[in-house]
């Protein structure tokens, strides 16, 4: 049972966390301009590297906040964690 460093709460047991897949795959600005293949890429295709992988995690059974983490997929070691919104500019919702 490994410890994961929540940027808000500190180290907590992994069972408190939920995995959110690859980070940095923003919802497209305007899905209607994408062709079927581009849209399918957004919906279904994610990177699966051997080594450092930037992912989203949620401290679901703790502060319930999402954060970004860099994890080594070979060892499961977390190399870095960062709270969401610390560096990325918000995207504008479309109406």
């Amino acid at each position, binding site marked *: 049972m490994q410890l994961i460093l929540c940027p808000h709460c500190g180290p907590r047991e992994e069972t408190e966390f939920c995995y959110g897949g690859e980070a940095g795959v923003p919802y497209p600005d305007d899905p*209607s301009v994408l062709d079927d293949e581009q849209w399918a890429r957004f919906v*279904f295709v994610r990177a699966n590297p051997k080594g450092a992988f930037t992912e*989203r995690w*949620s401290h679901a059974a703790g502060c*319930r906040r*999402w954060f970004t983490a860099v994890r080594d997929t070979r060892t499961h070691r977390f190399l870095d964690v960062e709270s*969401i919104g610390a560096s990325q500019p*918000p995207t504008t*919702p*479309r109406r």
Partner: protein
Amino acid sequence: MTRIDGYGHALDRTRTSTVTVNGRRYTGHPGDTLASVLLAHDVGAIGTGVKYGRPRGITAAWTEDPTGLVQIEEPFPEPMLLASTVEITEGLVARGVNGQGRLAQVPDHARYDRRHTHCDVFVVGAGPAGLTAARRAARDGSSVVLVDDRPTPGGTLTGTERIDGKPALAFVDDVVAELAAHPDVTHLQRTTAFGHYDDGFVLALERRTDHLGSEAPAGRSRQRVHRIRAARIVLATGAIERPVVFEDNDRPGVMLASAARDLLHRHGVLAGRDVVVATTTDSAYAAALDLAAAGARVQVLDARAEVPPSWADRCAAAGVAVTAGTTVRGTVGEHRVHGVLVGDDRAEMPCDLLLVSGGWTPTSHLVSHVGGTLAYDEALGAFVPGEQLAGVDVVGAAKGTFGLAAALREAGGDDAPTAPEEPSTPSLVVWRTDGDPSRQFVDIARDATVADVARAVGAGMTHPEHVKRYTTIGTAHDQGKTSGMLAAGIIAELTGRPITALSPTTFRPPFTPVGFAALAGCQRGELFDPVRTTAIHDRHVRAGAEFEDVGQWRRPRYYPQPGEDMTAAVLRECVAVRTRVGIMDGSALGKIDVQGPDAAVLLDHLYTNLMSSLKVGRVRYGVMCGHDGMVVDDGTVLRLAEDRFLVTTTTGNAAHVLDSMEEWLQTEWPHLRIRLTSVTEHWSVFAVVGPRSRAVIARAFPGLNVSNAGFGFMTWQDTGLDGVDVRLARISFSGELAYEVNVASWYASALWDHLVAAGEPEGITRYGTETMHVLRAEKGFPIIGQDTDGTVSPHDLGIGWAVSTKKADFVGKRSFARAVNHDPMRKQLVSLLPTDATTKLPEGSQIVAWCDDGALPPPPVPMLGHVTSSYLSAELGRPFALALVTGGRERIGEVVGVPVGTALVPARIGGSVLVDPEGARRDG
């Protein structure tokens, strides 16, 4: 009787206990194990082997024993424990295991619990190295937890050694006393660290009562699982002696040399009178000399070409004959050893005990559990811990540091205790001697022989992991503690590859078997998984409800009257709702309070339909899809204020919907000003449903305008009752006139009683989830997760009207534009009416084309879809079903076949709405 006076430091000889094994009574002392009592009475065989039924006795004195299995009958049945690890208590009844053990057929009423501990240093093993490491950490001011699986500390110390100039056991007592005086030290015996996980996490099992027998304090948990998180871990787990493989090495009376020594010093038991010691290493000489001193006739066969001089001298002085360059090739005897076959000419040498030592294998299980590598040490003939793991130190024999003085130095640092240096001569690594491979047992617990390993290698398997699975070596109760290293060595020999090229099999938790009861702890029965009940659960119980589990919720399914089965009760409830009025507890419905100036923006994006246009005071049905355009949830949305919505979800999906809302808010649109709160538990919801529901609501809330003009369909109103706020909404899941009555859960009981009383003149009938399901199915309302499976779009369900064409975007919209989404041959939700009007189609049944001969053709038969819901309808007077059918809406009117048992049942496809398709009933 072979109990020797002056030995047995673990025994309390002033008291006796009587146990029964295989129907015979034996008397021993507190401090004895079942094994020591049996050996004290010269018992050889106690059970039989798993595959060949050959006799099995006791081979080792602790958890490494591959053979001495017993079934405990009293005080509580337990299968496959080791006689060597069972401490005796008065009245214990056991039986040797013949082949396999037997699980208890009675409930286990003992208590099991769990404790969480955090510490600076966690030490496994209270032998000399572990005690020294714990003392060192305690003196440094660290918080320390020290565990050891034996009843008493000291590890393999026999009491004959000297540490810091005093007898070894006095040293042990002193260290234990010093540790006990530290407030931050926890020292637990009878506690096995059975699993080691990432970041300093260890699970340990403490056995707390069995050894106390009838004197165990009432209420004390029998076993406790310790969950320990430590900044640093010291593994002082010692080493396990391994045998050498020879012909008929499984016969009772063959034992590890260290076991005989341990039995003598700990329990005062001399395991044989006429002893042959076959060794490849120095340590067995100590056993030989100790047994000789206790009165046995002892001969030593050393596989090495020369006998180490210091041992030769001591043996000569003790009258112990030593032969060099000789190995054992086999044993003779029936149910126990009567002699050994020695050397190339297989000369028979009579004896009643054969002690074997092929060297020592470091106990590195806890290193391996957490991903640590092991490396082969040529001199030791064993795998030892490889590169150091972060935060984990291995000390003493566990690291391959044999010899008391060296182990103490390694564990103790600057104030390490001292012990006399013993000269040591290199061991000879011998895995097996010449003989018939089919009678040379590698893993005695599994009855797996050298011939089995040869077969595995002959079949092309060269990796120990593969051979393990082919031969089952290492998969018994002992997990190959004595056989794993032998198997690796023999594989190397048979494949002609160097053993350094082999990696050993990975050790996995648990180190020793752990009962499921211990792992479950207090989480049994009602506490196994929390049961959620609504605020008026007691009302349902009193009304005689039968319940069903929906996720973690326990909801009333139906309310049988005397003599009614479920079918009769549900038909009665359905009639009552469709003709008069019924009341149902809908409190388990998921509810999310969405507040903030941007609330409508989020809901517009997450629901397929438009929520921002919803007026305050109104209710809208909404559908949620994934990015792939498939339905994930549905429910109603009440607009409570410009900046506030109450969203309901399906009962089982509430947490998931809240999570996905949170995810959007935090990761995609963190600038939106919205707060989400789960209010599922806060609000109780009662549905009052049926043509007479208006009269009931009017009586219950006299001030309320209940006319259709004053309180229209899909609107909500706040009212009060005796000063308590009540919210009503005209929402119908049955097609009938209906009101959902919401109140803070604190007042739920009072409101329920009030509604039931108000409904009495109308004959109000309680109904449960089963009736709710029938009524909604009659109207073609899908249940997400029952009528859908993650591949179903709103259009497939016939609720395309709930998909906005006005919004620029929402989750799933882009997927609806894909060509495959417009394929007319997609599976669509339709009704199915079995044409015989009597067969209730089993849910999950496949649907195939109808064949005129009424028989299912031979395979392959193309599948057209499957039945998703199926009920008896009181309204229709017949069974009906909902189904997902390929091109279903195009097929309306067609007859298809549904295989039920061996028959093919014809059923006609219809539109999904079977009752009141015009919707005439919803306004009463």
